[in-house]
């Protein structure tokens, strides 16, 4: 996602600089790079076939899609699906939940990998650093079904946490049935699962900081804290911005698996999100047009968010394009 627009931009520049489409194909530069172009071709094909062509299917959001008539033959219904969507009280709640959960995940979850990376970077003993690093990124490789099962069991009223709580206060607490605690568990489990893995990218960025900067700083009397603030953080700032823009693109798509395995009826007021709704109503219930409309809306909002974030980032001279 990140690489592609950039590539396209560069491609465009090149075509323009070599003066016209026709001549470009005969330039020495093109000829010498032919193997590269050839290798690039499958990538283009991949994006065309699997990313761009399916977008045409979005027309069913404006149709009454049936298997019988197919994507193109189905009847046009204009904005009926959207109208139906936005008159249902449920839909508004679902969109609100999606926004709320994802914004919270980004805002609260975002700093954790950075903190983790910096802490790991400051560890002196190599073996300790490697062990911790491996352990914290291990959960990333478990599927959400497993993590969800663990979390639900641990926080159940007959679970581990409540057993301890009962010994302390004599009262169990229904963590999974209370909206506040459910959101906390949702966010916590997301951080636990993915913070370690996301930290890898920051760790890589950290290695590119010139060690002489740290030496100079410590000679000038800067302590660890000052070093982190004035060298480490500015050093990885570009990476942080790119990660933030990418995260904003995902704001509207709370991961399906995580919500689906953790949600329950009691907290449905907060736990029903767009992806789980599309699954239940669209894929299981066969209401493809209605859920395509919802999906299209979701993408639009995400697109606007990406543009906004980039505009903000550009203000600080760190824009992606």
């Amino acid at each position: 996602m990140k690489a592609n627009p950039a590539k396209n931009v560069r491609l465009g520049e090149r075509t323009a600089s070599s003066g016209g489409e026709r001549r470009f194909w005969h330039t020495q530069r093109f000829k010498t790079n032919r193997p590269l172009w050839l290798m690039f071709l499958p990538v283009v094909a991949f994006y065309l076939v699997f990313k761009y062509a399916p977008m045409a299917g979005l027309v069913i959001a404006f149709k009454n899609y049936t298997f019988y008539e197919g994507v193109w033959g189905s009847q046009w219904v204009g904005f009926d699906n959207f109208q139906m969507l936005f008159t249902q009280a449920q839909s508004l709640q679902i969109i609100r939940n999606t926004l709320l959960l994802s914004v919270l995940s980004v805002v609260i979850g975002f700093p954790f990998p950075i903190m983790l990376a910096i802490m790991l970077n400051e560890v002196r003993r190599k073996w300790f650093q490697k062990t911790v690093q491996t352990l914290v990124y291990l959960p990333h490789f478990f599927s959400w079904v497993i993590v969800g099962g663990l979390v639900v069991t641990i926080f159940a009223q007959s679970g581990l946490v409540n057993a301890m709580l009962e010994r302390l206060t004599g009262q169990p607490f229904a963590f999974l049935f209370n909206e506040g605690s459910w959101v906390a568990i949702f966010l916590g489990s997301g951080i636990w699962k993915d913070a370690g893995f996301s930290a890898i990218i920051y760790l890589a960025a950290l290695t590119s900081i010139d060690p002489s900067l740290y030496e100079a700083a410590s000679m000038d009397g800067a302590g660890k804290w000052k070093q982190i603030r004035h060298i480490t953080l500015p050093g990885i700032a570009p990476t942080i911005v790119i990660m933030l823009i990418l995260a904003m693109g995902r704001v509207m798509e709370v991961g399906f698996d995580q919500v689906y395995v953790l949600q329950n009826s009691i907290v449905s007021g907060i736990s029903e999100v767009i992806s789980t709704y599309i699954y239940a109503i669209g894929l299981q219930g066969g209401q493809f047009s209605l859920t395509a409309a919802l999906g299209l809306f979701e993408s639009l909002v995400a697109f606007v968010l990406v543009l906004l974030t980039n505009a903000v980032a550009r203000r600080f001279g760190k824009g992606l394009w």
Partner: protein
Amino acid sequence: MTRKRLSAAVSARKAKQAVYAALTVTFALAAAGCSGGSTNAEGEGGASADKRGSITVSLYDRGTVPSSEGTMDNNRWTKWVNENGPVDVKYVSVPRFESLQKFNVLFASRQAPDLIFEYDTAYQGQLYNQKQLMPLDDLIAQHSTEYKVMLEKYPALQKAGMMEDGKTYLVGRAMALTPHHYLLIRKDWLDKLGLDVPKTPEEFLAVAEAFTQKDPDGDGQNNTEGTGLSFVAGIILNNMYGTGFTLFGEDQIPWVLENGQVVHDWDRIRASIAFQQKLYDAGAVDKDFVTDKNGEKQKQMWTSGKLGITGSNGADVGSYEALKQNVPDAEVIAMALPTTEFGSYSPTLSSPVQMTGMVNASAKDPESVMKMIDFMVGEKYTETIQNGIEGVHYEKTEDGRAKAIDPEKNKTELEYNRDMSMLTPLLGKNYGLKNKVDPTPAEQDYIKIYDEAVEAYMDPSRPMVGITQRAYLPLLPQNLTTINTNANKTILDMAMQTIVGGGGEAAVDKFIGDAKNVWDKAGGAQVDEFYAKWYVENKDDAILMEDIYEMGKQMKQEE
């Protein structure tokens, strides 16, 4: 530049070109390989009678095929079908518990099989609404042999196979009317605490509380639970009050008959939610029953001997065996549902006819599909798929029943093929625990439980709830389906919140008020009207509750 060097350069360029050419060919081949998969063997001249037809058939995959047997779509039984059947069959495996998604994807990509097997009647209706099914009347009249005989023998099949437009779209099978959901209780616990089998909701609550508090398993620890509340147990406790609006499963059917009219019931739901709230408040149920969506946790409690009352889906001998292994003294009986102010009811029985098969509207060779349907109904197929190969997996007893030669061997070689028999009539001498040759001790015990269930649940004076079984209700048009599913989902969540949230009668009243509100706002009145109108217009032709019991009786006589 010397000649030599020049030629070297030329050959180098040639070599490069060759490499490009090779690469291009490779990509082209790869691309062709990708699209090649979709052109499946349909068989060209389907119409010609002498040529062997070729069709595709769906088959559930429950992930139970041992690796030594191959895969669901390629194993000894699929091979047997192709060797012994009238047509070539290519099976398309469909994950059992994600079947709707899979079928939807297959239909959307125009790769759905010619012959489709799916239990979900609502989905069958959806396919009909989407015009994906082929009307079968002419096909059956002109080409069918075996299935035609079945239709004559069981006219209900004809009735149940028809859709709104009066044409036949579904094929199915006859089944003995037997208990399907069981409410099981630990008799040894009752005896130990000096209690009787509960006859009213109040007694039920008292028993559940006693089971929780009085340490019926005698291990000195406070670790027992009164009753299950999730899945089948929850469904049954709703049925007990005469409502078909259940919190688990797919059947949210609140409509009942009152004075010869179909009405949307709220009183029964109210009473049943109030009762379940009391059970929850009393601590007699699993505090986390909401998250136990498919009843697995409840089953675990039951088999480990820590649960007093549970709901069972069919004759679950496996769970009983596990319980007996953990608690050899356990004694289990099937109990009648307590009588409430709304009367006495029974949990779900099996339907006497079950529609399972459909033909894809775009099937290229319907005649061959019909041949396959006939083959699947015929004796050779049904006996082989059910019992295996004679002399290898079973031998016949004197009275014509099948006796397994080596039950262990059958477990690996035979049992995974159950879903190939979706057109096999489930009645007669080879069906059911009772007809089993040499039952194990656990099976013998369960036959006793089965007899109790028959006694308690099969009496028409203690009927199943609702107007008729779900399979025989008319299908809602698409826009009403949307209203119904969306509103019901919200109401269902609210009901769960009421049970868990406590707050007594006031909370339940608030729930009913809110639920009515949701239903009205969503346009539920249209759904109510649809069913009411359907009943008025079709009450003479439709299969209603009395008819089901009548059909059950008939089938019993025929055996």
